[in-house]
């Protein structure tokens, strides 16, 4: 048992003595170093040591939760008392039970020992390389913001039913954001971002070039004439539209509360047969990969939609108990909140066609790399502004697009998926192909 887990274990016993019927302790501790870019230059360096405790208690089946940014015994006891006070006022609810212990498997590649010698100086070198690569790519590039950050942390969960889980992770995140400027013209803002657990997988140059290519290719963009037709959603746009709506709809908590369009639809066809979606908490080098969830239960790989058929919702212990099923290991959240239900890494299966063939077969349509908007996860309605768009005519990308909007309903689009690309990209915790959908309303001024 590591030091952090032993603190958690002690706190569980303390909580029981203080009057909790059941208690769960999550402890986090970590250190990070970061160098940030601003206005085409290095701006600030920082190092932080962080910690936190999240405490969930049940008393007479009433819920209480408290958190503190400390792992000191005195602060933890104070937080346990606050949680118990809340639980004392809470209604008794039958599903308020903690999970029993379940066997965990170690996940490889979450902690890279080389991260121990990664210093602020290394972060500076990475941030500088990222900045210089972008600036050298094209003189029209201007970098507004960017960061390179390195983090090492450990997490421990213990509860009064015997759950005991602990894990160490290392992680590196880097992103760059800005625009291209030519004369009076300022392009749309764009960005590129990557994540890894492994020092050797850091590649800032690639991200800088990807960002630079995105903003320079959008110079000279114009609006297009309004039409209804096919739209090829790139991974980023796909994440915003399909990702937002699907992750809401397959969440058991929303289903049980009558807030999901996928309620009572297990086994039914909910989208085109060329779409399959998984939740994979064990994905290699995934942003949300770890061996256990927010309740200390094992992460899994779950088929949510297989060839268009809805297969499963995602569950934590509470929602699973209501449906008399087992938790899928999707308890989510950090130490500041009581566990909810959430996806881990969402993976949309790749398709059969190459991206360039999908474009080649499009007579008159739009490629949408990124979208600025807020789809309504409940109704599926969306209306958003196209960023990094291209007009396609007779199979060719003829013109970058700006000042153009697309709108429709995501649940309708899911049934009109014409093609799914072979190529996929990781966009934070999502892995997605490009997806061509038919019959989208495009509004422009052209």
């Amino acid at each position, binding site marked *: 048992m590591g030091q952090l887990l032993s603190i958690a274990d002690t706190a569980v016993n303390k909580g029981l003595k203080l009057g909790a019927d059941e208690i769960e302790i999550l402890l986090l501790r970590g250190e990070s170093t970061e160098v940030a870019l601003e206005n085409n230059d290095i701006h600030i360096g920082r190092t932080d040591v962080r910690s936190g405790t999240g405490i969930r208690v049940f008393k007479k089946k009433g819920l209480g939760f408290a958190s503190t940014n400390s792992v000191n015994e005195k602060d933890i006891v104070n937080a346990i008392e606050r949680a118990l006070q809340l639980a004392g006022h809470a209604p008794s609810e039958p599903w308020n039970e903690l999970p029993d212990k379940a066997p965990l498997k170690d996940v490889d590649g979450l902690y890279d020992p080389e991260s121990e010698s990664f210093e602020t100086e290394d972060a500076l070198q990475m941030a500088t390389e990222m900045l210089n690569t972008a600036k050298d790519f094209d003189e029209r590039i201007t970098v507004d913001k960017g960061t390179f950050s390195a983090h090492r942390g450990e997490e421990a969960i213990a509860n009064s039913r015997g759950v005991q889980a602990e894990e160490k992770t290392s992680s590196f995140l880097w992103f760059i954001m800005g625009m291209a400027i030519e004369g009076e013209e300022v392009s749309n803002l764009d960005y590129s971002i990557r994540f890894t657990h492994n020092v050797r997988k850091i590649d800032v140059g690639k991200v800088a070039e990807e960002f630079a290519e995105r903003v320079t290719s959008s110079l000279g963009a114009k609006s297009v004439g309004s039409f209804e037709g096919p739209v090829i959603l790139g991974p980023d746009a796909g994440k915003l539209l399909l990702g937002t709506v699907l992750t809401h709809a397959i969440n058991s908590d929303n289903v049980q509360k009558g807030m999901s369009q996928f309620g009572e639809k297990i086994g039914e066809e909910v989208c085109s047969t060329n779409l399959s979606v998984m939740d994979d908490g064990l994905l290699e080098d995934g942003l949300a990969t770890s061996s256990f969830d927010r309740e200390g239960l094992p992460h899994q790989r779950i088929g949510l939609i297989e060839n268009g058929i809805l297969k499963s919702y995602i569950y934590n212990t509470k929602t699973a108990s209501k449906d008399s099923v087992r938790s899928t290991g999707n308890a989510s959240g950090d130490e500041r909140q*009581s566990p909810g239900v959430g996806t881990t890494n969402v993976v949309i299966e790749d398709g059969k066609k190459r991206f360039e063939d999908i474009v080649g077969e499009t007579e008159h349509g739009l490629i949408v790399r990124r979208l600025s908007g807020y789809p309504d996860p409940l109704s599926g309605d969306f209306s958003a502004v196209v960023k990094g768009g291209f007009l396609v005519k007779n199979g060719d990308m003829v013109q970058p697009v700006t000042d153009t909007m697309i709108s429709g309903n995501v649940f309708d689009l899911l049934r009109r998926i014409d093609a799914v690309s072979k190529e996929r990209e990781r966009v934070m915790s999502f892995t997605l192909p490009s997806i061509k959908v038919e019959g989208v309303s495009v509004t422009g001024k052209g």
Partner: protein
Amino acid sequence: MLDLLSKVEAKSVAKYTELRFQSRQVNRISIEKGELESASSSSRRGVGIRTLVDGAWGFSSTNKLELGGLSECLDSSMKAGRMASKGRKEKVESLEDVTPASGTFRPKVNDPVEDHSLEEKMNLVRDIEERTRGVSEDIKSSSCTYYEIIDHKMIVTSDGAEAEIFDVKPEFSVLAVAAREGKMNMGYDANCVTGGWKDLFAEKSPEEISEKAATLAVDLLKASGPEGGESLVVLDPSLVGLICHEAIGHTVEGDFVAAGSIMKGKLGEAVASPLVSLVDSGVPAENVHAAGAIQVDDEGVSTKDARIIDKGMLRTYLVNREMAKELGAEPCGNARAFEHTNRPIIRMRNTYLEPGDSSLDEILEETKKGYLLKGGGEGQADANAEFMFTAGEAYEINDGEIGKLLKNVTISGRAFDVLKSVDMVSRDFWFDMGYGMCFKGQPAKVDGGGPYIRCLTMVGGKAEGR
């Protein structure tokens, strides 16, 4: 704690040192469809130290609140600054002079939230959530959330700031879900203020918030989407706040201007109709309870109004002390950090458009065809001033009359084009954009408002003639 911060500051050899202590308590009660979803109490205490060393910035934060821990944190901050300096090409020579804030600052509070018991708050949230489901048989689900952010901060800088700050921002919100014949829609309403219990419910009672959310959710079941294209739109004060925030506010943030936002080099130029005067205020005289109200920012600068646009002319940018020097603007207290672990960055506070001479009725009368758009929206800004935002409620306007409710209405445009097209501004004026958060790497509580205005924007929707 102030003495301790000063003691640590005295040890610093940095050109500028800023120590911020923050003790934050966030209490939340949330009930969804009759179930207690959250009863939580989050407590965070710590110090963030920012230093300017060898012409570059360093930052570090800690939760070790004694001399040893804070000294260590100061060393880490300076070390990180020295490191950043090795990579920084343009060194920061000095910061703009300010009169540093000193003393104790408290917001105006009517009926402190602390005087209302946990039991009372829990009962209110439960009753209102239950009430919401009773508004119509089409309401299938709802949730109600009360939360309060209670801050105690201290700021000490090497330029002499020594301020102790208290702040309270409570928020109350209701979400209603209506469903019928396979259709599902949600309605939302909320209020957030800086102040107390009475301030929170001064404009709208909990029952009114519930009624609004439920009625909207049910009405949206019958609504269809708009036709796409350019159109005249009449925006209510809440959305005027949002357009001020997204279309102009973000593009005049000094860090963004320096990097080359479209507003760079446009001081003194006409960027909007002469009817447009736009202000970002620390504590608006018109409403001291605005949700973004702060009296002192996180660089220890007392807040003032930043008059961004005066009768259509761009007058200033929003700056911190570093950018004030670079861009020749006055620091008005726009450097904000969310928690002690965040560094201060340039943010808005309460952004509003000043009222005009028309009435809403006159504006509607003059509008043959267009849309009336009301609050509850979310938005985004871009470097080229292309903004977008969603409207919580949207109605057709036909021959000056308010027509049917529409759903899924998002508008976009270029800030200059849209603000130059403003041709009518009403006398009504209020703030109503305080709930939720603005994200720029870290969250911030902001507010916004104004009068009703009419302007020309693009509306996303079905291609015409289909």
